[in-house]
């Protein structure tokens, strides 16, 4: 099957991106190199094409009521122009997808979902929306999404807009920001652990905006590929669907209970999550560092006291670091900081220690 192309495909090629198949999209895995790009975002600023992400609109009298039922976090407390991170759970409490909820008004809400889940999510949402007075629409193919992340992100973005970006607070948005004359939705959100913005706009102007940003950003703004996007989100302790989040793992087990509000109204999967919390978890994700040699990769098995206790969900030796660190979904008895576990690397058991998965002090501007 031919790969889908974002409206920035030609820009990626011009910038020397190494293009790969990612969830059916032709996207750059790297430009200069994962390490250089990772550090560029931590030290200056990086520009990401995230147009492969999905956008689904929910409109209608019961839009807010529906979204509140659809997701595990409490959408009813959202102010206008506020953004919320949460999950759509299935009836078993597993995660259909993690997503961002953008509330324009009680009657107009935008959901931003993972590229690999767009079709599954849309089918799920359409089915669940039947009993509500709402209209759902998958607008993913019309919308481009660009992220600018890093300590200099605001300063660079400010150069192409007359709106004071200080007015866009953490996890809020403005849907009518003019960037070099192009109307965009701009939110102070992102997936790197850095301060930064996500920009949504019509496909036809995406390449123009990227070129404008690269122009004003100069050496302080680097194009970033999917490789560094993954190392950055992992270092910031942010989960990835398919790794830490799955349809057979609940968000409580993924250690993300903060984004689940069990005391709020009814939502899909709530009963299971309430019961799971009451009975206590049997497994949970935990951060770890290898004490022995090697690198623990996603999919490797974890052991302790001579028995298998779970699986690594993500593992890296991060750019600029000496230690191999990872996240694993393991038996709750071993998920506490300081516990000794072992990771099986190519048929050898390597010692590891459970540590906090907040590998990085986040620099969000709140």
């Amino acid at each position: 099957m031919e790969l889908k192309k974002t409206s920035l495909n030609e820009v990626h090629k011009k910038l020397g991106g190494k293009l790969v198949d990612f969830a059916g999209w032709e996207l750059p895995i790297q430009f200069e190199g994962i390490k250089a790009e990772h550090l560029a975002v931590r030290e200056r600023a990086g520009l990401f094409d995230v147009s492969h992400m999905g956008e689904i609109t929910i409109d209608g009298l019961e839009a807010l009521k529906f979204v509140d039922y659809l997701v595990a976090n409490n959408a009813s407390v959202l102010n206008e122009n506020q953004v919320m991170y949460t999950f759509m759970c299935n009836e078993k409490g597993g995660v259909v997808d993690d997503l961002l909820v953008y509330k324009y008004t009680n009657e107009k809400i935008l959901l931003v979902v993972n590229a690999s889940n767009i079709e599954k999510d849309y089918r799920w949402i359409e089915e669940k929306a039947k009993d509500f007075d709402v209209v759902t629409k998958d607008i993913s193919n019309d919308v481009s999404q660009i992220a600018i992340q890093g300590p200099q992100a605001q300063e660079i973005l400010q150069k192409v807009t007359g709106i004071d970006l200080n007015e866009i607070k953490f996890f809020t948005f403005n849907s009518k920001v003019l960037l070099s004359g192009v109307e965009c939705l701009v939110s102070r959100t992102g997936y790197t652990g850095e301060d930064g913005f996500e920009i949504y706009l019509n496909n036809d102007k995406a390449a123009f905006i990227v070129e404008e940003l690269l122009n004003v950003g100069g050496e302080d703004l680097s194009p970033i590929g999917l490789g560094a996007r993954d190392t950055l989100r992992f270092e910031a302790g942010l989960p990835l669907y398919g790794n830490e989040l799955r349809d057979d793992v609940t968000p409580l087990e993924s250690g993300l209970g903060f984004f689940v509000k069990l005391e709020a109204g009814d939502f899909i999967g709530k009963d299971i999550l309430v019961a799971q919390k009451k009975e206590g978890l049997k497994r949970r994700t935990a951060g770890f560092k290898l004490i022995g040699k090697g690198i623990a990769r996603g999919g490797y098995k974890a052991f302790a006291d001579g028995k298998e206790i779970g699986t690594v969900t993500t593992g890296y030796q991060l750019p600029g670091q000496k230690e191999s660190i990872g996240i694993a979904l393991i038996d709750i008895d071993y998920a506490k900081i300081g516990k000794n576990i072992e990771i099986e690397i190519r048929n050898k058991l390597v010692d590891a220690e459970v540590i906090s998965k907040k590998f990085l002090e986040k620099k969000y501007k709140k």
Partner: protein
Amino acid sequence: MEKLLYSKNHEWIRKEGSTAFIGITDHAQKSLGEIVYVELPEVDDEFEIEEAFGVIESVKAASDSYMPVSGKIIEINEALEDSPTLLNEDPYGAWIIKIELSDEGELDSLLDLSAYNELCEEDN
């Protein structure tokens, strides 16, 4: 110094008498990107041609390295344990293993520089 020969798996080999040094090519290190870890075999381990003798890990993934010819390990480049990026910086200087050749005839199956360059062009 003898010239280098190359395998289809992107290792180079430099024969010196009955022994030889083995490393990975410039093309291989570029494809892998930043190398963060090298898993080396033990001295005296014996491997058949095309058998995996070690693992090279980049930020993104682990890749096996294969023997271009059969042989016994007589030395490993321990410097790679602390400085795996030597393979990025100087791929033809930073050898990985030194072996005693089991069958010098196997060298005939390897590629010379021009044949290897052709292979890399096909790769690109």
